[in-house]
């Protein structure tokens, strides 16, 4: 029998959940095809087929779906509603399967399991089982595939997280060398925050992370912060945030402020409703930590690489000038 080909768009929530789906579907004997990392063609496809008012990440998702459509039998587009009590995904991700089929024609069959852990049909297990049934009739096999993939997913997830104290001992406190010869050698710690489909999509963010690394920056992300820390940090808020993805961003931001990293860059999407509110919360918090430089980079399809480069340089310049002063180097101007 021919293997069923299932396409997964390398965008939005799949930055988080691709490993889980891939493991699960492959174990059941399906062939999983992940779209290429975002490139110009994918971006253009997305921009052309979505309403201009739609946020960039959703446009990119459209592009990935289209890029897969000729190669696969199915496309996986889960409806992400709720993965924890008291929080949701953003309206666009909840409506994503409907948006996609309204805007795009001639797509392969779409698999749109609902993840909504408040409902019995929407638990991870039941939702994945539903999809599994398409591939095989053997329900005990599906069930086993689920528990195995879930375990692996959780383990890998935790493996990425650094022990909180380790994180700062290894990378922060010890990294100021006694006598840097040139300014450029002063290492700095910068947290790059944002939804992971922005921070990890190097095409969209113009390779920001690598650029920073090349400039001798120790880059910190929300993913390496332990969920327990995030939870604790969120207690500082007057009202809990009800978006799962943003909880992570805000919790990590508050943590990095407290740890007095040198700088925080918050990556946001222009038309994003979550970011507009969360950005304000982080901005508000930043005023309590004058030692930590804070800036926001807003992305849309018109963002240019030159503009971003200038802003990175200016931001680093400012931070290094401050540090030079702190460690007693004579200013070079």
């Amino acid at each position, binding site marked *: 029998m021919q293997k069923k080909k299932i396409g997964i768009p390398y965008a939005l929530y799949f930055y988080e959940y691709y490993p889980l789906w891939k493991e699960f579907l492959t174990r059941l004997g399906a062939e999983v095809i992940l779209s290429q990392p975002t490139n110009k063609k994918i971006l253009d496809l997305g921009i052309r087929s979505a309403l201009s*008012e739609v946020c960039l990440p959703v446009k990119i998702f459209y592009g990935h779906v289209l890029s897969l459509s000729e190669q696969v039998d199915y496309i996986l587009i889960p409806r992400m509603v709720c993965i924890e009590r008291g929080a949701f995904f953003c309206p666009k991700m909840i*409506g994503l399967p409907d*948006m996609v089929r309204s805007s795009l024609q001639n797509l392969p069959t779409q698999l749109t399991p609902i993840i909504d852990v408040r409902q019995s049909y929407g638990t991870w297990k039941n939702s994945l089982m539903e999809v599994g049934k398409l591939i095989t009739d053997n329900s005990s096999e599906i069930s086993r595939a689920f528990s195995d993939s879930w375990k692996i997913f959780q383990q890998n997830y935790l493996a990425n997280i650094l022990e909180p104290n380790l994180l700062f001992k290894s990378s922060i406190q010890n990294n100021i060398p006694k006598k840097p010869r040139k300014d450029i050698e002063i290492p700095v710690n910068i947290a790059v925050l944002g939804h992971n489909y922005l921070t990890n999509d190097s095409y969209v963010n113009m390779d920001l992370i690598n650029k920073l690394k090349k400039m001798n920056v120790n880059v910190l992300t929300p993913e390496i912060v332990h969920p327990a820390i995030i939870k604790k940090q969120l207690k500082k808020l007057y009202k809990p945030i009800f978006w799962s993805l943003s909880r992570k961003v805000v919790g990590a931001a508050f943590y990095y402020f407290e740890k007095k990293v040198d700088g925080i860059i918050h990556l946001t999407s222009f038309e994003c409703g979550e970011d507009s509110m969360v950005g304000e919360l982080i901005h508000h918090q930043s005023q309590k930590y004058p030692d930590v430089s804070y800036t926001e980079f807003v992305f849309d399809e018109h963002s240019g690489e030159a503009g971003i480069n200038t802003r990175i340089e200016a931001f680093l310049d400012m931070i290094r000038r401050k540090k030079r002063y702190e460690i007693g180097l004579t200013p070079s101007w």
Partner: protein
Amino acid sequence: MKLALPRLGNIEVINNTILTDMGHELVEAPPNSKRTMDLGVKYSPEYCCLPLKIALGNMIEAIDLGAEGLIMAGGWGPCRFGYYAQVQRDVLLDLGYNFRMLIFELPRKEGIRTLWKNINILRNGKSWLYMVKQLRFAWQQILLTEELENKVLQVRPREKKKGAASRILLKSIREIKQAKDINTLEQIRKETMEKFAEATNPHMQNLIRVALVGEFYVSLEPFVNHHLEEKLGYLGVEVVRKNSIEAWIAPIMKLHIFKESFKEEKDIEQAAYQYLAHSVGGEGQTSVGNVVLAHQEGLDGAIQVVPFTCMPEIVAETILKKVSEDLDFPTLTLTYDEQTGEEGLNTRIEAFIDLLKMRRKRVNVS
């Protein structure tokens, strides 16, 4: 405590009932104006949606007039509304204002104590019985106000003298605001309906009919939507308003007496289901369902109003493109932000109405 409410359409009709009569000093936020908008825009986070900005403008104007407590609704997502009050509070604190934010929302965990406290502040030492009576009466005031507002949509395109319908409504709204008992409301209702009947030209039949759907605040606040209902009325169009404060409050209260609007809600969801199978917060799914229903009801078209960057309505807008195509049912989306200009808006609306008129003619010919 001197209390103020943000503005929304004619919601001010309940101010006396729930504030003054409860022994509070009322501070009326001035009607929405360019100044309100400018203040709101200046101090709000740049990328927030328009309703947040305007409501912030109301708050600033109210505090400047002496308000000490601001009453605001809350919520728990997935759209931004539930976080409004928090952000507004932060902004106002940063501006150095001294005030208390009274947020009314379904409580979670510790929230129940805050809610209880807020309710007691509102109750102000009066008996529970009295408070319930006032709330009930406020509800009646809202119902009558919306009934008249809906009626005026039919009268306006048929009025004998331009502006008469709006004038009658304005006067009645003032009376509703001063009313103290059900009998008075009944009297106002009767008189207004008579005046409306008198102002109407009965020979105007078969007007173009358009459903108005979209985001709650923008659809119900004339200053923000640039008096869309009036504009359409004067173009000879009968507007069928699909959003209402009634339907907004009813599900929150989950009370027996509102059964009817529950049923309506179910019907709307049902109608949307084929295109948008899940609620996306705000009025997203409602907008889609209402357009499908408007088509079934034989209306000529629909207008969707969207605050720039509104998450649920952008989902709806995307889907409405498809709905409109499938059903061959014209829909126009109007996006509003602080820069929306009158002229561009007028041109688009007029072109849309012309299109609807042409379609009518075509149907009549064939």
